[in-house]
């Protein structure tokens, strides 16, 4: 059997998750190429394909109907679809605008009604096509992506963490942000990143989204009572990367 074919595709995003792959540097990246064939990666190469693909990594959010056909075509051709990065898995930071009614007018002024500026709510890729696996994070953890690909190449089921970031802080013995007089979303944020933010002295912003059953009412209470956040900030704090997950949940 030949090496599995892998392709990268991008929608509304900053393409930083694709850049994370190049940050693997010489050893890991060149080794990866011994096990997979990258057949399309527009940000880095001119080669493209119309053929079936083994693994499609899709970065970015779905924000306009015009992109639906392209997503459906990728799904038809791909054996495995991975939503790659937070914009793709939940809508990520793009979803911040979902709670605003005037975002188009605010940015585009009088031109807001023009058809090519069409941009609806930012939605995860899974709102359009079936997604097999999620590589969470803003940006993705490049080592987790390597692990997911490696599992798939070896016929194993990738394991995606569904426990909070607090677990990873405890494991690496990071002093809790609350003990430093700060606030944090780590209690309900999905782990898997290795908790780099509290370790470098800033709160977790839940850039990988929430664990599957977050207690948001308690989160707001803790943000107010332990983190010293105002009512207004406690209310909006959890919207940064999780606006789609927060919407519609009982608070």
């Amino acid at each position, binding site marked *: 059997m030949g090496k599995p074919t892998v392709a990268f595709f991008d929608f509304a*995003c900053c*393409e930083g998750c694709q850049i994370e792959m190049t940050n693997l540097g010489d050893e890991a990246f060149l080794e990866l190429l011994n096990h997979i064939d990258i057949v399309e990666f527009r940000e880095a*190469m001119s080669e493209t394909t119309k053929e079936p693909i083994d693994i499609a990594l899709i970065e970015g959010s779905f924000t306009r109907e015009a992109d639906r056909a392209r997503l459906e075509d990728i799904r038809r051709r791909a054996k495995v679809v991975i939503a790659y990065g937070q914009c793709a898995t939940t809508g990520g930071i793009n979803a911040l605008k979902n709670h605003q009614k005037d975002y188009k007018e605010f940015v*585009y002024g009088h031109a807001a009604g*023009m058809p090519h*500026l069409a941009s609806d709510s930012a939605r995860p890729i899974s709102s359009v096509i079936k997604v097999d696996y999620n590589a969470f994070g803003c940006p993705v953890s490049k080592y987790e992506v390597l692990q997911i690909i490696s599992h798939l190449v070896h016929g194993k089921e990738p394991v995606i963490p569904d426990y909070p970031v607090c677990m990873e802080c405890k494991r690496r013995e990071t002093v809790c942000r609350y003990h430093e007089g700060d606030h944090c979303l780590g209690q309900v944020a999905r782990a898997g990143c290795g908790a780099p933010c509290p370790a*470098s002295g800033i709160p977790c912003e839940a850039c990988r989204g929430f664990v599957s059953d977050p207690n948001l009412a308690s989160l707001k209470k803790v943000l107010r009572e332990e983190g010293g956040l105002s009512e207004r900030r406690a209310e909006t704090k959890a919207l940064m990367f999780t606006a789609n997950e927060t919407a519609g949940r009982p608070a």
Partner: protein
Amino acid sequence: MIQDIKIDVHHLTRVEGHGNIVVDVKNGKVEKCEWQVPEAPRFFESMVRGRHYTEVARVTSRICGICSIGHTLASLKATEAACAVEISHQTGRLRRLLKHAENFDSHVLHVFVLAAPDLAGAPSVLPLIKTHPAVVAGALKLKRLGHEWGSLIGGRTTHPTSAVPGGFTSVPTEDELQTLRGRLLKAAADLEPLLEVVAALAKNIPSFYRPTEYIALHSDVDYSLYNGDIQSFVDGRPKERLPVSEYRRVTNEYVVPQSTAKYTRNRLPCYAVGALARFNNNHEQLHHEAKRVAQALGLLPHCFNPYMNTAAQAVEMVHNLHKSIQIIDELLAEGVSLEKPAAPTRFGKGSGAVEVPRGILFHEYEYDKEGICVSGNCIIPTNQNHGNIQADFEKLVPELLEAGKGEKQMELALEMLVRAYDPCISCSTHYLDVTFKR
């Protein structure tokens, strides 16, 4: 020779974001020649509203995955101007070291991975792994250095963590800085043979000449990437300078009739930003090693060939390494300690600018009395280059026709031109520049 040419490059490759090239020539007459940007808009200026001043840079960093350090720093500078925050000498040095890391990291990616395949006649870096294994491995090694160097200072290179308003939440140890210093010295040596390969390929850089206006930060202290005023250079005219707080007088955004894209103009109908603009404004302040490499690559001041932006990036890589060694020496001489980030002394309105790899970047915010953002404005280098790329197209296409170039050659020449600007299209369409009606 009278000919028909139809070029429709839908989603140009090896650039960040989505751009199209459309050329239509009938009976030897150029009917259409356009650089289009169909990227999905993302509305960042709207999304920063309601965010606390400590969160704003974390939001706007997400405008771009390649220059997220630059977005973070421009954002922090704007927030600090709005909140009257004074940063320490140590913070200033660490930020300049971080800025050099980003510039180096991004230029390595662009010169060796995105642009070099054109000069070597390959569709991507992948075939070069077989034909130029040492160069590719060397380049990836330098890419990793850029990433680890930026991560040491900023916590991470894609969306940095530890750079916050008023300073840093963690700082490298003196041992870590010593180790980095050694790696930078080694990288300067490792870069030499790679640049010789680039110099040998530089003969394949097309010769094309179109003087324009070049805008970059300028400071009397150094080759400016982090500090300075806005400077405009137009050949044969006196240079003009303005403080960053008056950036709107330089960017003068306007809407062109045939599209909804906002372009920018200053003294001339369009201007260029980026490595070549910095070189044309500030070449005298380059490190002498960088000046030597500029000579070897045939990059002489002042240079009016936009394709040479890639060469200017290679020159800046050398500068980034040597200047950073100096900054590390300064840091080590004074000792590095974890300082508490400086706090706001008021909440108001302010702007900030840095040079990101692709050119000058402006951020501006206004905060209410609780430190919550009420408005934001970001003007991105690629936005400022869109008009200049279009003007290059309008001069280049007739010249290529005149020279009897066929469709494929013309397509490659136009693709290479856009790539030379190293455009960051997601960045530019965080905003209005989304454009184009067919």
